[in-house]
C-alpha cells in the first residue's frame, strides 16, 4: 500500500471542512479502502467529535511528533469500520507544536499502512494550513456558494499553486437548489467560473448533516440523505470512477449543464 494524501482545506472557517473530511473518510472506507484521518487543527480539534471517537482518545498528533508514543498508539480505530483510523489533534497545545516537516515525516511513515490519508486542515492560511498542505498529494478545497467563502477559497488555491502542490479540486458545499433557482445564491457554474479549478463534488444543504454530526454518525451513513449521497459520489470520483452529477430537487437543468461543462471542458 502506498497511501495518497488528501488535504481538505478552505481558508474560511465553518464551510464544512471537518464534515467533508469525516464523510469522505467513511465514503472511501465503505468503498473498501483503508483510510487514516489526521486532524491538524491543534487546539480546536473537531474531527474526533464528528466521527464519534472523542471518548477513545489517549494519545494525539503532538504526542506522536514529540515522541511520547508510537504512531500506531495514536491511531484510533473506528469500531464501525475496521479500515478507518483517526489520529486526533491535541486539544491543549497550539499549532506551533507542529511543523510542516513533522507532517511530511508522519505521512511517510503512514503511507505503507493505508490507501488514503485524509488530512483535515484548520481554517486560515498560517502555520496550521501549511502543516496540512506539506505532505499533500491532492488538495480538496471546500467552499460555500457565498462571496466571502469564495474569496478565501481563491486565496487558498493561489497559495497551493504557489507551493506547487495539487492537483486542487473543488467541493461546493451547502448549495441550496431552490435559492439558486430564485437567483438568490451563486450557482455551481458561477463558482467554477471564478475559481477555475475542476469540480469534484456538489453537496446540497441538508438538515441531516447537522443531525448526524451531533450524533457523531456522519451523514454519508444515511442512505436517504442527498448530502450523504453527494459525499459518497465524491469518494467514488476520488477512486477514479465517473459518477454522473446527481439531480437535486428536480433541478435537472442546472446539473445537466454542469455535467456538460465538465465532460466537455476540463
Amino acid at each position, binding site marked *: 500500500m502506498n497511501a495518497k494524501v488528501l488535504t481538505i482545506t478552505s481558508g474560511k472557517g465553518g464551510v464544512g471542512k471537518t464534515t467533508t473530511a469525516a464523510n469522505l473518510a467513511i465514503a472511501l472506507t465503505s468503498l473498501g479502502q483503508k483510510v487514516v484521518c489526521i486532524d491538524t487543527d491543534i487546539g480546536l480539534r473537531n474531527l474526533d467529535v464528528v466521527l464519534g471517537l472523542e471518548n477513545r482518545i489517549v494519545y494525539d498528533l503532538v504526542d506522536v511528533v514529540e515522541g511520547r508514543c508510537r504512531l500506531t498508539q495514536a491511531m484510533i480505530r473506528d469500531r464501525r469500520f475496521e479500515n478507518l483510523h483517526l489520529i486526533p489533534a491535541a486539544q491543549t497545545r497550539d499549532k506551533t507544536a507542529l511543523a510542516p516537516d513533522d507532517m511530511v515525516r508522519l505521512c511517510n511513515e503512514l503511507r505503507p499502512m493505508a490507501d488514503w490519508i485524509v488530512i483535515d486542515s484548520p481554517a486560515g492560511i498560517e502555520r496550521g494550513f501549511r502543516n496540512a498542505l506539506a505532505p499533500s498529494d491532492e488538495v480538496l478545497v471546500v467552499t460555500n456558494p457565498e462571496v466571502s467563502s469564495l474569496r478565501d477559497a*481563491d*486565496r487558498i*488555491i*493561489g497559495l497551493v499553486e504557489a507551493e506547487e502542490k495539487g492537483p486542487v479540486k473543488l467541493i461546493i458545499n451547502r448549495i441550496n437548489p431552490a435559492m439558486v433557482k430564485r437567483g438568490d445564491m451563486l450557482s455551481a457554474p458561477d463558482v467554477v467560473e471564478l475559481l477555475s479549478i475542476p469540480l469534484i463534488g456538489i453537496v446540497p444543504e441538508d438538515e441531516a448533516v447537522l443531525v448526524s454530526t451531533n450524533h457523531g454518525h456522519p451523514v454519508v451513513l444515511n442512505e436517504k440523505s442527498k448530502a450523504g449521497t453527494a459525499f459518497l459520489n465524491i469518494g467514488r470520483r476520488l477512486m477514479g470512477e465517473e459518477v454522473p452529477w446527481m439531480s437535486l430537487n428536480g433541478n435537472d437543468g442546472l446539473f445537466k449543464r454542469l455535467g456538460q461543462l465538465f465532460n466537455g471542458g476540463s
Partner: protein
Amino acid sequence: MDIKGIKEGILISFDDLEWRYAKALLLEKISEKQDFFQGGKLVLSVGNAVLGTKALKELSETLSSHGITLHGVLGQSSVTQNAAQKMGLITKLEKPVIKPEMNLKPLDTVIEGESAVFVRKTLRSGYKVVYHGHVVVFGDVNPGAEIVATGSVIVWGRLRGTVHAGAEGDQSAVVCALDLSPTQLRIASKIATTPEDHAVPQPEIASIADGHIIAVPWQH
C-alpha cells in the same frame, strides 16, 4: 607589434620600431607560432623604415624558408615603396569599395517597444503584481488580487480585482480587459469602481477623458 587578419592575408604593423629590431621580433614570432604563419601571406607595415631591394629579397627568402609568402610592404619611404613594387609586392591595401550613397531614408519599421511584464496565469486573491512599466496578464484577475503598473494594464481574461495603471501619474495609461469589472480601477490619481448594473461582459478599454475615468467597449 600588431598582428591582424586582413583580406590580403596577415597584416603585421611595426609602427616606428627600428627595422632590425622589427625584423628580429618578426622572425621570433614566426618561429614561435610556426603553425599559425605556415602558408600565410604577409603584408608588413614598416612605417618609416628604409628598405632596399636587397633587404626585401633577403626577407622574402627568409620568410619563404618558413613557408610564408611576402605579399606586400607598406611604408612611407619612397625607397621602400619602389623596391617593393620592383619585386611585385603590393604597397597599398585595397580599400573597400564604397557604394554610392542611397538617397532613400530607411523605413522606420523596427520599434524598440516599452518595458512590460507578461503574467501567464490567473491572479487569485492575495496575489499582487507591481511593475515599473506595463503589465499584461494572460488569465483572470480575481477579486482580491492587485495590479500596480506605472504604465498600462492589459488583461486577456476577466479583470475583477483591483488595478492601478499610471501609478506614478501617467494620465495617458489605459486599462483594458475582455471583461472589465474591477473591484476598483485607478488611473494616475483618478479612482473608479464598476457600476452595479454592469452589462454583459464585453471587451472594454478604460482611460482618462475630461478628468474622469471612462470605459468604452472595444470596437471591432
